[in-house]
């Protein structure tokens, strides 16, 4: 299994290579290159721009620039932010834990709701519970995450107040209360609204997907065999059906990882959550290209890493999968 993981790591290199080449040339292909924002600024003279170009190595041929950029990146040097004049690697390192907290907690909440809902729907298809769940999943799949975030702020920050203190029920942004020590409780309090907004859509997709994949599996012969040998219904579901039905769900989640980070970008922007998405959005508005390239590359590495983990997890669930 370790050798399989290693091989997958090696296989992921061409993927990251294609991405890096694409991004690099997109950024450099723009007229004026990465300095286009500076070039439009009337306070920056032509000579200053030429000097900046020399300093940043932008006067070299593109392939040379690419190799240099890649070499720096492999050594963990993502360049310096144009706006903040700080190493990008350092800025991203500060933000990664915050994004992972947000995405991780939302993912856990999603699984805790989607798994039972999907199982219950499949056990009693076309029951009132199934109809309710189906309607709710259609709503959940159709609500844009950015609108849900705004709506939650409107209801729970502007609308409903805490009857004891008269203060808003939940904070509208940030990770911690200013001027207070960071406690777990305070963090959780700040997590409620962003996590709700972020998990709603995923919960809808995953529970719907699990329901249909469970219903497919329940027609299989081995389920009939399990019932025929007199197995308790619960065991039929949890030991025989669920183990098989969950495999396609793992594949879906692995393929869907980019959208988890995309959702986080919107939520971080709306709730002023100091994560990588927020960093990226700020950088995109200021055309801070080293930050942009850095965040996208790190995100891609995270996604590829999670993909490999999902594949390894797949092997744990399905003994037929051989890592040879």
């Amino acid at each position, binding site marked *: 299994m370790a050798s399989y993981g290693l091989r997958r790591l090696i296989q992921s290199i061409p993927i990251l290579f294609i991405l890096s080449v694409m991004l690099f040339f997109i950024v450099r*292909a723009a007229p004026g290159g990465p300095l286009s924002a500076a070039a439009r600024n009337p306070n920056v003279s032509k000579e200053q721009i030429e000097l900046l170009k020399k300093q940043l190595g932008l006067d070299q041929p593109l392939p040379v620039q690419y190799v240099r950029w890649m070499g720096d990146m492999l050594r963990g040097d993502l360049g310096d932010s144009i706006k903040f004049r700080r190493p990008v690697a350092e800025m991203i390192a500060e933000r990664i834990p915050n994004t992972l907290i947000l995405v991780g907690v939302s993912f856990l909440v999603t699984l805790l709701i989607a798994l039972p809902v999907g199982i219950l729907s499949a056990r009693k298809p076309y029951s009132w519970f199934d109809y309710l769940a189906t309607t709710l999943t259609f709503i959940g799949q159709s609500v*844009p995450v950015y609108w849900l975030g705004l709506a939650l702020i409107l209801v729970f920050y502007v609308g409903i107040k805490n009857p004891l203190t008269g203060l808003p029920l939940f904070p509208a942004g940030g990770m911690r209360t200013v001027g207070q020590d960071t406690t777990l409780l305070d963090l959780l309090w700040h997590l409620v609204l962003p996590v709700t907004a972020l998990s709603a859509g995923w919960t809808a997709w995953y529970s719907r997907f699990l329901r249909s994949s469970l219903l497919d599996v329940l027609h299989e012969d081995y389920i009939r065999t399990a019932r025929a040998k007199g197995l308790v219904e619960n065991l039929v579901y949890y030991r025989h059906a669920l183990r098989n039905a969950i495999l396609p769900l793992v594949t879906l989640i692995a393929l869907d990882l980019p959208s988890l980070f995309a959702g986080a970008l919107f939520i971080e922007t709306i709730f002023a959550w100091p994560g990588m998405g927020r960093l990226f959005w700020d950088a995109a508005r200021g055309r801070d290209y080293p930050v942009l390239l850095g965040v996208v590359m790190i995100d891609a590495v995270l*996604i590829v890493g999670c993909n490999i983990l999902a594949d390894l997890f797949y092997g744990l669930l399905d003994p037929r999968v051989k890592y040879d």
Partner: protein
Amino acid sequence: MIERDLAAVILRRFFKHRMAGLAIITLLLLAALSFGASFSAYSPTGQEPANNFKPPSAEHWFGTDELGRDIFTRILYGGRISLLVGLVSTLLSIGLGVTVGALSGYYGGWLDNLLMRITDAFLTFPTVFVLILLSSFLRELPLPWLKNSVVVVIVIIAALSWMWPARLVRSLFITLRERDFISATRALGGSDARIILVHILPNCIGPILVSATLQMASAIITESGLSYLGFGVQPPTPTWGAILSTAQVHVFRSPWLALFPGLMIFITVMTINYIGDGLRDAFDPYVIHPK
């Protein structure tokens, strides 16, 4: 004759799905309203600063925004953009995806390997991040057709969504190409192009249509999201995302500004999802509708 009967059967099965029937009527109504937006008494960009932040009333059904523009009219015009972006980017992405998937699945071998490597690479891209990068830098290129931000949005959404139909069509082709009726066509001397286009592709129509609805729903959400973040269709063109993004600034003062554009995105996407559900049932011979 048989083909026409089959189409009639599928259409009948589609309308048996009540929500799907209702959804297609709602969507047609929305489209008609959007394309009739010019009949509105207000202009989508006409400003009346004295008349700003008006709550919904008989005059301004959805109220007015910070510049006194009629929100209802702006939302109708925004509907044009959303539906246009959704439709065209879906056509592009399905076209590209079906081509890649068909070639990959039919020929297999090194071509399949190469195309699937590229597909996998695109699937691991952090989509929205790359979309934002593409959108802000493509607009800088000195190409006249990229000056229009709607075109930019359509192209980049299609460029980052063709992988799903490609994988789907590839898997359909891999099963279908081994079937006896394909071997028979090949034995009769049918060319590859004929086998792909006339014999295999029509058998994939159902799943492709279903995946097209999913693509369109997600394209509309993505377009509005990009415009909301400021990297989609550029002002003063009214779009649902852009209206929502100004709404966010004034959300405490006039919450209805945020309500209507979001509601429109939600309704549109939900109708498309229901149509997809109806299509899935209509093309699936195993689904039996309760009377």
